[in-house]
């Protein structure tokens, strides 16, 4: 029986001795087992991805260049870029694009900043350490749908707690569902609430991997805690920080559940004047609309994908440029 694993110790020399004794048939089977098994074990992932990821993604791209008046029948004639032109000229799409980027900025920037601070607070010799770590993860178990309904009530325009508190402070009520920036803030608050603790734990893991000697050396040089944080901690965790920023970008631009359930009318259009409709909602709603729903939704979905890739690349380049400058 021939066997080779990834081990450098299991070299071919030793196996040749074992090979000699085996009967030919069993030898062939075992050989096949050895060669094919690694591929067989990863096959399920690639098969599933082909069916639910790659094929639909390409088909979505293909479909976006056709007309296809109704579901069920085959698609109609090729229309070139007409679906993209239609979507890009649609004022609702433009609004959704601005809303998506606005909500994304209001959620990702404070989220990463606060998560870094919370991680630094957790990266101390706390009593009841595992309790504190669990406590920051609590919102993560509340589903986005439930989160949206809870915050929809907190931010209710008339009887919400937030407006009541504002009133108590002598400030005027805010129309959380009506005004554009206010509605973005409310939706971003939901995202921040659910994900800040999760990201803090990821950053905490990176902080704990930083050598304690570095801190001691910095402390001996007379660096304060804040300076240690800025000059030792932050540079050491930059890879993880980049990971957190890029994943929150990818997630933030796809936001769907929170704005959909924040809506107080039943059209699910993201406010009476589309003031908080996002691109993911636009794709979903276009797929349910009257004229050429699928090709147009397909074009919008690809535009969203391009936007996500562009933002992720932008993040990557900005972070790398900052690192170069500090290095």
């Amino acid at each position, binding site marked *: 029986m021939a066997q080779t694993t990834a081990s450098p110790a299991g070299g071919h020399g030793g196996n040749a001795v074992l090979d000699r004794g085996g009967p030919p048939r069993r030898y062939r089977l075992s050989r096949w087992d050895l060669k094919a098994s690694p591929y067989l074990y990863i096959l399920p*992932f690639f098969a599933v991805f082909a069916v639910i990821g790659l094929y639909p993604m390409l088909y979505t791209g293909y479909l976006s260049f056709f007309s296809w008046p109704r579901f069920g029948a085959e698609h109609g004639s090729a229309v070139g870029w007409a679906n993209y032109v239609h979507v890009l000229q649609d004022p609702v799409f433009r609004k959704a694009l601005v809303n998506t980027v606005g909500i994304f900025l209001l959620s990702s920037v404070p989220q990463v900043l606060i998560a870094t601070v919370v991680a630094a607070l957790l990266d101390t010799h706390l009593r009841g350490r595992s309790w504190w770590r669990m406590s920051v993860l609590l919102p993560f178990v509340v*589903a986005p749908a439930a989160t949206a309904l809870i915050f929809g009530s907190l931010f209710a325009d008339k009887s919400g707690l937030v407006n009541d508190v504002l009133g108590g402070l002598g400030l005027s009520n805010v129309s959380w569902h009506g005004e554009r920036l206010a509605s973005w803030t409310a939706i971003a608050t939901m995202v921040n609430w659910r994900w800040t603790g999760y990201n803090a734990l990821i950053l905490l893991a990176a902080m704990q991997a930083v050598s*304690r000697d570095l801190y001691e050396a910095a402390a001996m040089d007379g660096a304060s805690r804040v300076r240690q944080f800025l000059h030792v901690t932050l540079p050491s965790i930059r890879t993880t920080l980049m990971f957190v920023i890029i994943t929150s970008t990818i997630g933030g631009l796809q936001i769907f559940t929170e704005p959909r359930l924040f809506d107080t009318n039943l059209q699910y259009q993201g406010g009476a004047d589309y003031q908080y409709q996002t691109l993911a909602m636009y794709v979903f709603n276009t797929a349910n609309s009257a004229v050429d729903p699928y090709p147009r939704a397909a074009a919008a979905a690809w535009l969203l994908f391009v936007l996500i890739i562009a933002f992720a690349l932008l993040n990557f380049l900005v972070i790398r440029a900052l690192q170069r400058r500090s290095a």
Partner: protein
Amino acid sequence: MTRRPRALVYGLLAAFFLGSAFPLYWSFIIGSVTRVRASQNPPPLLPGGHFLENASRVFDRIDFWSALGNSILISGFSALSVVLFSTLAGYSFAKLRFRGSNALMVFVVMTMAVPPQLALIPLLKEFSNLGLTGTQFAVALPWLVTAFGVFFMRQYLVDAIPDELIDAARVDGCSMIRTFWTVAVPAARPAMAILGLFTFMQVWTDFMWPLLVLQGSDVQTLQTALDQLKISPSQTLSDMALLQAGTMLATVPLLLLFIATGRHLVTGIMQGAVKG
């Protein structure tokens, strides 16, 4: 940073915890007062005694127990499937040598950037052609195995299994799959448990895909049932007591799971991060 932290650190963390917990407390308050009280100013700050009454109104509007059963079934099935296939693939990537292994692993990681919206329409078409829309299976299918799962198991297994152990099993005449079951699976067990828990929560909280594929069907998950609760008769919109009671009912199962297993979840998230 070897000193014991000062009170300020505890104070800030406590404030963060209050911010994390308060929305849940608020949901419970509103879910436990009468419909009229829920919409009055100033808002109530203490729980009332009407939670069961509101809950029974929730049960009248949506088939809560069937949605709960579906959520448990779909999340449980997906968790088992993701754990099995991710462990197999993660083991292969971490411990077996084969041509193209590095490039294929990079490909797996890259698939994580593809937004689900891109696949919605063709998937919906495929599923409706196959007559699968409106079934639990349709909700679970995209969750048979995940890129995150494969990546997570690979990272864990690289260090968790000594190569000598695999060689020894092979020298003893174990087939590849027997080596997997007798050597890899026992070593992978802690990571498998964490991945299962994590996947269970991910599938449980998923909203857009079940919403699309279960549209107009009797089969609902807890999340889509909340959506239905909101749209049922139009006066529901102003019935915050009903909505919050439903939200609480839909949240409690996962909250209990979190209380029982939260420490492991924390460990898992932190492990996945350091090695990633």
